């Protein structure tokens, strides 16, 4: 291990300071990627940014919590059953959003639909606030649920958390599943067709309404899985609007960085931004005293990289030319 001593006499480990942000970056990147995946799916299918995606995730997390802990008159169910109900709730909320907000405005300008999703997000945050559950609670992490140690392994004394591994595995599985769905299934192809020209899709006999419901249902499912994996210790919370207020904005940036039309791009963009953020933050730890001088370098780094990538490659890293 290399030890350096600064002028002030503070020793630190170069190796330690590279591994910590690496693991943190991958873990946070998985969170951005998970939310970003749902965003990309709806962009591919409807051509809109869905600002309600964070709340689909939060509803799923809340429903999982209340059934897992048996809040009020609800039964105390095994975690995985509660999680299944949570995902179902995420899908239902997404389907209701599609039926009551998106479908009636289907032929309106896309910007109106986007504003509609902002309205849905705000409405859901309000509804969550009214629900009787402890708002500061968290969901158990996967290690607690399975009754195993909280980390898979340690590298140079730094634990690799079970939950982070679960997030990454789920992100990879969902990204591959979504890619295969669009590439190889008729319904996936129909979703792409509707997104490219909904009138032409009607002409060949595709029910645009049914396809819209399917894509929103899948977005709800992706959001639900993301919510259950993200509302865990240490940073996760069940506070209404928490995902929308923090993770969703970076997830949008991740989806744009990866390419809004590319599902694997959500993975790449999420990981990329997670790592940039973590290393930019690590810089403050790396140079003692920097944090007292500069703050917000992570956010700055994320958006500087995003703008640079978009200037050089406007369609994002893996996006297709449109």
């Amino acid at each position: 291990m290399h030890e350096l001593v600064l002028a002030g006499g503070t020793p630190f480990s170069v190796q330690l300071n590279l591994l910590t942000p690496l693991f943190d970056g991958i873990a946070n990147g998985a969170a951005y990627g998970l939310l970003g995946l749902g965003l990309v799916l709806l962009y591919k299918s409807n051509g809109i940014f869905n600002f309600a995606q964070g709340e689909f995730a939060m509803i799923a997390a809340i429903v999982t919590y209340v059934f897992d802990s048996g809040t009020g008159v609800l039964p105390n169910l095994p975690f995985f059953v509660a999680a299944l109900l949570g995902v179902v709730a995420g899908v239902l909320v997404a389907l209701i959003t599609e039926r009551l907000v998106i479908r009636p405005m289907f032929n309106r300008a896309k910007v109106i639909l986007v504003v509609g999703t902002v309205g849905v997000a705000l409405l859901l945050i309000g509804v969550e606030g009214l629900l009787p559950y402890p708002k500061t609670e968290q969901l158990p992490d996967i290690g607690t649920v399975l009754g195993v140690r909280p980390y898979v392994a340690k590298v140079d004394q730094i634990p690799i958390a079970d939950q982070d591994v679960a997030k990454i595995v789920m992100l990879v599985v969902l990204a591959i599943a979504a890619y295969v769905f669009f590439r190889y299934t008729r319904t996936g192809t129909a979703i792409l067709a509707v997104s490219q020209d909904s009138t032409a899709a009607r002409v060949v006999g595709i029910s645009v309404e049914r396809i819209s419901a399917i894509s929103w249902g899948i977005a709800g499912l992706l959001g639900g899985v993301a919510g259950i994996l993200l509302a865990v210790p240490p940073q996760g919370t069940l506070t209404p609007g928490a995902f929308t207020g923090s993770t969703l904005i970076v997830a949008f940036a991740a989806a744009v960085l990866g390419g809004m039309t590319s599902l694997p791009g959500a993975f790449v963009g999420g990981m990329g931004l997670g790592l940039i953020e973590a290393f930019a933050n690590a810089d403050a730890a790396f140079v003692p005293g920097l944090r007292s001088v500069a703050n917000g370098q992570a956010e700055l780094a994320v958006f500087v990289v995003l703008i640079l990538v978009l200037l050089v490659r406007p369609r994002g890293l893996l996006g297709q030319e449109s």
Partner: protein
Amino acid sequence: MTQLLEVEDLRAGYGSVPVLQGVTFSVAEGETAVMFGLNGAGKSTTVNTIAGLLKTWGGKVTFDGEVISGLPASEIVKRGVSLCPEGRRVFPQLSVRTNLELGAWTNRSVQAEQLERVFGYFPRLEERSAQMAGTLSGGEQQMLAIGRALMSKPRLLLIDEASLGLSPKLTQTVFQVVDQINDDGTTVVIVEQNVGVLPYADQALVMQKGTITFDGRGEALAKTGDLRAAYLG
């Protein structure tokens, strides 16, 4: 001769603006009908309403003895009516082959057989089957749009502005293929502004201001002044 398509006092429009003011005509099975008229006469509105893309305000459309007006577009395609829309409207970021396969969305059992048929009419599409549809030339996109409409094996093919934006030579090629499609048993209704299609027409229709002002045999239209009146007033 059996009437395959019967349109009776059809009324439709956009928003609160009426376009079709009571359109009535019928097309016999196995024939090619050509509908002429100026821009805004209601030709596209008529075929779009028949195909279920626009709501029927009044009147009815009967296909093979059954009323289809009011049914969703997907159901109308299933029953054997297919539209090749104005402006081609191919799926630009999907391959030629995928565009064609989507044409058989409602009738997957005929996909392989129809794909062979379409490639027979348009060998160029087979050569370019892996290419993105958006990268095709205008003429090739028109071929793809007609081919896609044939993929569901329709009994009635509606073609809106087949020659729009095509060179005279390519226009003739498209008209000849449409004639071949008709000879192979598909009833065709073509909306056109190009009178060069008239030799291929069994029946001619002229539309003015949302109504049919001429309905007769193709050769009869050439002799009357109705076509001149429709275009020159």
